[in-house]
């Protein structure tokens, strides 16, 4: 029987009431009528229609929002370009030239982004070397201050608008017979010159004036006076046995420093059985990088230098039968006599150069070289240098033409006269009288802000071009990334404006190479093959047919009568710093934070004054002083700089930019207004008046605040004569006192035993050797390391707190008057001795440089103290950091005797307080994807470019062989223009590093504490007699 369950007694009864309710959908009585009669709802403003509208809007809005999915910029390739493989870098040969430095480079790109500049070894000019500015140039590509499109009257415009407007203005100028002036920096590019020539043909009133921020007009003009042709010869420092430089900073900024540094180092290195060294004598007013490397350095006031050249000329002339000239006495005449003798002893193998911009002084220098027979040996007049062509006279003349209203259109090309001209106010006034002003500047710089049109140029890494730094030496520039912004090459702009038939500059360039430059050689038989080969190699070099040296026809008497006579009173001298140079790259944070090799100050320029002279004047470090030249006055802080000449104040140009971008604006003061114009050329020194201001002291940020070695054997040093007698001169075996007498460091070991013979390095044992004789202290390695290892830029405030993040630093020490040896003679007790040793020998100290990075100690003190094993040793001798294990106790940094560990005090990425490279998306494009970006609170340090080692090992493994010596290189060693750093494997008996390690000059820094570093140094050798001047 089927069971029946009732829901309730009502169902059982089944009353009619129940049945009615059951059939009804809603049991209860629904208050529908009430609702419809409800007054409140009927008077509500939200009607049914409104509801539908809201609903519709909501649906539409939701679907629209859904459409706008966040755009992920990192998208994979749909069709992968053939040449790109993830994680594998591509290298493109190119060249760097910014109107100042030339360097043949390889550009490393990753997934289409240029991230690192390396030297091109195929170039016989720079030969794989770079400098700090070249290394930093890749960051300028990702500069957020760059213009993203052309500007017309300061407003964004399209290229077609700008082209149309400019073309009509140009035609108007040409039709009205007014001048069209192209004011550009030196353009050592044959194809560019052709474009300019064609442009001039189209607009016949065109005048091309070359204007470099820092002028070499004196050198050009001096050669014109000497040889009848305005040119700069090529110099061969490597052929010179005696080098005498009068304030030419040829290792840092003068003419072609990368090339000269390499040549210079060849003469200084004592490797591979070479036992001779050049003698280098420097006369100068400031302490330059070059002067600090000299064997003997003599100080002269800027106004005395010309007379010193004349005196040297007289001494040489007296010995070689030349005519003598009238000259004034200088305080260094005794030294000049000795120097003259040395030069005469090395006739035909010596070189005298001068950094002066006075043509007459250059004539005298040429005369000296001529009398010494240096032409065709250390100087080649036939192989002209095209790197400088500025014409001061033409620039000065231009201003009067502008004022006279003769100039219809002016085009600025890599020229920023409103910033870099001394009389920029006058130029600005003259500019207002020019009809149309066009600038190719990549940013709205000091000059571009006054221009009607800005047609922004590409960064060189986005450009096509060719360069001919020396006659017969060609270098192609090729783009390594598609232009980031709506910019265009100036050449292409000129082509457009001149309505040239070629589509773009690239085809024009290719055509020129295939048809013209191709003909200069015979090896390659097709234009296409020649073009491809040149593009791949970057460089194309042809021998210049050796003509006989043009006769020296300079009028020395006339020149000597026109040179500056020694002045009295305070003199001001302007110079270029190794990092910022002429100021074009002032917005590059790597260069701003790059410590000056001499002063170690970053983020500022300053008035450098000899300490004893500053004391006489009542100036202290950081005091703000006012320097007046004529009616121009500039205020800036004092830096006490040992080795400056008496009564001399030096300030670097290139600072005080106002329109360059957030990193460079307002950094330092602009010293260009202090440059004077004399005899239609720029004069970089002048008499000045100085006074102290009442302003608060201005703090300077320096990465090194202690300047002497305190009598410690940190940089070991000897003289050439001592070294020739004893290969271990200046580098005696480090001995440790034990109860059993003195023992070698290696022989004293707490742990070594039969069981523990040493370190197990079964595969590789990486090491780095640093030749202090080859290191010139230029700092290319510092910036190279920044780029390779994503080292954070921290800004001036943090550097003042000694928190710079550089993984490699270059220590610079001055010698002190008091040493441990002579303290007794001077009657100083131990306490006084240390006090005195802290003071650098203010008058003319010896200077030494020492690159210091993690020494990769085999007995690493940092490794034992880390509580969490975040830093450990690899079986290949590397001291490693596991950033994401680090808890940040900083014990390792405290226990590091070399103080090379760097702590992330803040989060340096995505932090508006550090708006440098790792905060905006553009700046982040420069980051090396192979290296972790470190977060706040962890320790970091040199990894010996472990990512490069790993890459090299894998490449070798794929090829089924061991890595070859030199195949793997660290960023610092690779960037070095002098090859002072040598990286390699100690386990490879044939490696160069192994050969150097056993040399008598090799030593470990702080060997006595027995941390057994993997890095070693080689004694610095000076080519001078112990304790004697010259």
């Amino acid at each position, binding site marked *: 029987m089927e069971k029946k369950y009732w829901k309730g007694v009502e169902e059982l009864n089944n009353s009619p009431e129940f049945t009615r309710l059951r059939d009804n959908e809603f049991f209860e009585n629904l208050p529908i009528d009430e609702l419809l009669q409800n007054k409140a709802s009927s008077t509500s403003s939200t009607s049914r229609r409104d509801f539908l509208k809201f609903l519709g809007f909501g649906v539409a809005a939701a679907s629209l929002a859904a459409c706008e999915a966040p755009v992920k910029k990192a998208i994979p390739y749909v069709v992968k370009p053939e040449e790109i493989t993830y994680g594998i870098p591509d290298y493109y040969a190119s060249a760097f030239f910014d109107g100042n430095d030339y360097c043949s480079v390889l550009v490393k790109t990753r997934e289409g982004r240029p991230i690192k500049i390396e030297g091109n070894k195929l170039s016989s000019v720079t030969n794989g070397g770079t400098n700090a500015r070249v290394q930093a140039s890749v960051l300028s590509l990702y500069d957020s201050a760059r213009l993203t499109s052309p500007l017309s009257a300061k407003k964004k415009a399209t290229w077609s608008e700008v082209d149309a407007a400019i073309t009509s203005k140009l035609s108007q100028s040409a039709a009205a017979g007014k001048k069209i002036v192209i004011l550009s920096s030196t353009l050592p590019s044959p194809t560019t010159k052709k474009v300019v020539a064609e442009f001039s043909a189209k607009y016949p009133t065109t005048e091309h004036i070359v204007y470099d921020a820092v002028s070499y007009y004196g050198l050009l003009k001096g050669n014109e006076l000497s040889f009848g042709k305005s040119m700069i010869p090529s110099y061969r420092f490597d052929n010179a046995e005696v080098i005498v430089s009068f304030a030419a900073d040829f290792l840092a900024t003068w003419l072609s420093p990368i090339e000269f540094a390499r040549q210079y180092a060849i003469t200084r290195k004592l490797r591979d059985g070479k036992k001779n060294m050049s003698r280098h004598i420097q006369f100068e007013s400031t302490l330059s990088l070059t002067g600090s490397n000299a064997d003997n350095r003599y100080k002269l006031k800027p106004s005395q230098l010309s007379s010193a050249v004349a005196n040297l000329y007289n001494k040489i002339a007296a010995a070689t039968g030349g005519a003598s000239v009238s000259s004034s006495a200088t305080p260094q005449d005794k030294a000049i006599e000795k120097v003259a003798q040395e030069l005469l002893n090395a006739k035909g193998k010596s070189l005298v150069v001068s950094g002066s911009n006075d043509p007459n002084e250059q004539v005298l220098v040429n005369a000296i070289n001529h009398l010494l027979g240096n032409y065709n040996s250390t100087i080649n007049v036939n192989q002209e240098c095209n790197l400088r062509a500025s014409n001061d006279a033409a620039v000065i003349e231009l201003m009067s033409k502008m004022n006279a209203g003769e100039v219809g259109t002016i085009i600025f090309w890599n020229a920023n006269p409103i910033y870099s001209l001394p009389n920029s106010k006058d130029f600005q006034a003259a500019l207002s009288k020019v009809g149309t002003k066009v600038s190719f500047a990549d940013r709205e710089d000091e000059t571009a802000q006054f221009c009607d049109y800005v047609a922004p140029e590409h960064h060189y890494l986005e450009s096509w071009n060719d360069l001919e730094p020396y006659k017969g030496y060609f270098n192609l520039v090729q783009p390594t990334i598609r232009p980031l912004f709506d910019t265009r090459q100036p050449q292409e702009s000129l082509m457009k404006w001149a309505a040239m038939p070629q589509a773009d500059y690239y085809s024009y360039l290719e055509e020129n190479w295939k048809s013209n430059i191709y003909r200069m050689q015979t090896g390659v038989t097709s234009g296409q093959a020649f073009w491809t080969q040149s593009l791949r190699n970057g460089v194309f070099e042809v021998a210049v047919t050796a003509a006989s040296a043009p006769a020296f026809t300079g009028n020395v008497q006339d020149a000597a009568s026109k040179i500056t006579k020694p002045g009295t009173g305070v003199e001001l001298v302007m110079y270029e710093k190794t990092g910022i140079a002429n100021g074009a790259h002032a917005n590059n944070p790597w260069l701003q934070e790059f410590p000056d090799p001499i002063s170690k100050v970053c983020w500022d320029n300053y008035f450098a004054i000899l300490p004893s002279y500053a004391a006489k004047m009542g100036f202290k470090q950081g005091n703000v002083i006012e320097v007046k030249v004529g009616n121009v006055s500039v205020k800036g802080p004092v830096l006490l700089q040992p080795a400056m000449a008496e009564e001399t104040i030096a300030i670097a140009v290139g600072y005080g930019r106002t329109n360059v971008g957030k990193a460079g604006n307002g950094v330092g003061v602009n010293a260009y207004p202090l440059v004077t114009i004399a005899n239609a050329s720029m004069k970089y020194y002048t008499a000045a008046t100085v006074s102290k201001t009442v302003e608060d002291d201005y703090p300077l940020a320096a990465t*090194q*605040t*202690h*300047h*002497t*070695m*305190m*009598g*410690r054997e*940190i940089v070991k040093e000897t003289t050439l004569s001592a070294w020739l007698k004893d290969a271990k001169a200046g580098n005696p075996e480090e001995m440790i*006192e034990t109860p059993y007498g003195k023992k070698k460091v290696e022989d004293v070991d707490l742990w070594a035993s039969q069981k523990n013979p040493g370190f197990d390095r079964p595969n590789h044992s990486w090491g780095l050797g640093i030749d202090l004789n080859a290191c010139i202290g230029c700092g290319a390695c510092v910036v190279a390391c920044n780029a390779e290892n994503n080292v954070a830029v921290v800004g001036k405030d*943090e550097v003042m*707190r*000694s*928190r*710079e993040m550089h993984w490699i*630093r270059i*220590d*610079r*020490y001055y010698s002190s008057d008091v040493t441990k040896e002579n303290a007794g003679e001077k009657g100083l007790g*131990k*306490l006084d001795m*240390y*006090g005195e040793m802290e003071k650098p020998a203010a008058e003319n100290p010896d200077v030494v440089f020492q690159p*210091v990075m993690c020494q990769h100690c085999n007995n690493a*003190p940092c490794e*034992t*103290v*880390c*509580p*969490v*094993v975040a830093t450990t040793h690899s079986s290949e001798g590397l001291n490693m950091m596991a950033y994401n*294990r*680090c*808890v*940040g*106790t*900083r*014990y390792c*940094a*405290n*226990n590091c*005797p*070399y*103080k090379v*560990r*760097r*702590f*992330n*005090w*803040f*989060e340096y990425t995505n932090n508006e307080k550090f708006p440098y490279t790792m905060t905006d998306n553009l700046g982040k494009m420069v980051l090396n994807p192979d290296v972790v970006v470190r977060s*706040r*609170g*962890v*320790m970091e340090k040199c990894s010996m470019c472990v990512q490069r080692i790993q890459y090299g090992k894998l490449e070798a493994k794929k090829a089924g062989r061991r890595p070859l010596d030199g195949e793997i290189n660290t960023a610092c060693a690779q960037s070095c223009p002098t090859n002072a750093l040598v990286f390699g494997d100690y386990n490879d008996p044939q490696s160069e590093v192994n050969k150097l390690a056993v040399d008598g000059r090799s030593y470990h*820094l*702080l060997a006595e*504490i027995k*941390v057994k570093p993997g890095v070693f140094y080689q004694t610095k050798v000076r080519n001078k007699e112990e304790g004697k001047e010259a």
Partner: protein
Amino acid sequence: MHKESELRPPLILGDKTWHDITEDVCRPVESKANKWWWLAFSLAVAALLWWIVAVSYTLGTGLGVWGLNKTVGWAWDITNFVWWVGIGHAGTLISAILLLFRQKWRLSINRSAEAMTIFAVICAATFIVTHMGRPWVAYWPIPLPNQFGSLWVNFNSPLVWDVFAISTYFTVSLVFWYTGLIPDFAVIRERATTKWRKRIYTLLSFGWVGSAKNWQRFEEVSLVLAGISTPLVLSVHSVVSMDFATSLVPGWHTTIFPPYFVAGAVFSGFAMVQTLLIIGRKVLGLEDYITIYHIDMMNRVILITGSIVGVAYITEFFIAWYSGVEYEQYAFINRATGPYWWAYWSMMTCNVITPQLFWSTKLRESVFATFIISIFVNIGMWFERFVIIVTSLHRDYIPSSWTMYHPTWVEAGIFIGSLGLFFTCFLLFARVFPVIAMSELKTIIKSSSEGSKKKHAKSVTQEVNV
């Protein structure tokens, strides 16, 4: 079988009966706080708030808000850490070593001294955490089983030894302190007049009934803990000193450090006990319990340990000279004559010269002089750690990296704030816990004999007068 020397003065004055002791010790716990307590508490809490602000700012922004740099990686942080750990040592020495040596006078002061130890170690621990670059992973130096792979701590690192030393020290001190508190909590429980007080102290006193068995176990546990604590007095600061001694920084790398640090720790600890108790006995009216005798005894410890520390300072200089090591010699010359000479001479004055004044009995028995000198010692011992840490680091091997260290307001805030944290804890302790180990103290009063002796003496005098 209690044999009493007639010459020995009583340890507690005022002819206290057992009941008097209970009343005196429980008064602060059972009565309302006076305005002085509130004033002190407000100041301490204000300082604690500054600590919270400064620590939050540090944690939120990064250690860059401190004054450290590439060369000086530790400064006020570790100075404060070592200073606080050192201060803690007096408590353990008093309660453990003096117990083993049966120094009964310790009973008046051991409770507060142990409380001081606990709070000082807490303060020290805060510096361990805040000085880390990534404090959110502060547990990584502890050898915990983990899922990071086979990651383990580095047992070579003195910082890991620190983790063990400090955590053991804190645990043992806390247990020892609490064990002592149990009978006293029971007393308060019995006297409690309100419901919640009764409940809380019932809970705290772990069901203590005061039976003979209770007491026997109490004595045994105390003895065992004293046995465990005694080596800790020597080991904890020895381990802390190894943070420096095992490094190779000139001025740190010194074998003398362990004994020298232990002596220094006891020295500073006793000075802090003096500072606290000289105020405490006055404010809480405990002059009869913490007597001039106690002050004198502690001053003797200060004199001895201060002299040891002084000898250590001189020995360091001798060894620097005798070693012939360039860097070592310079480190010490730099301490005394370099840019931080003022810190060195503050240390020498406060730590070596001032305690020598305690050769004078008059000064040793002067409450005022003791208070002033104890403050000097506290300051001097802070400077000692500052001198060791900062002046050694700021000029070590490579002169190019020599720098100066300048503290910021944040570091000052964290230090002063840690004093706030300490005093907040201590003042709360003085209000809710019995500040003197009353139950144990009752074992040393001579109420019966003293009272009758005095009565007897009185009657004899009267007789003579008659």
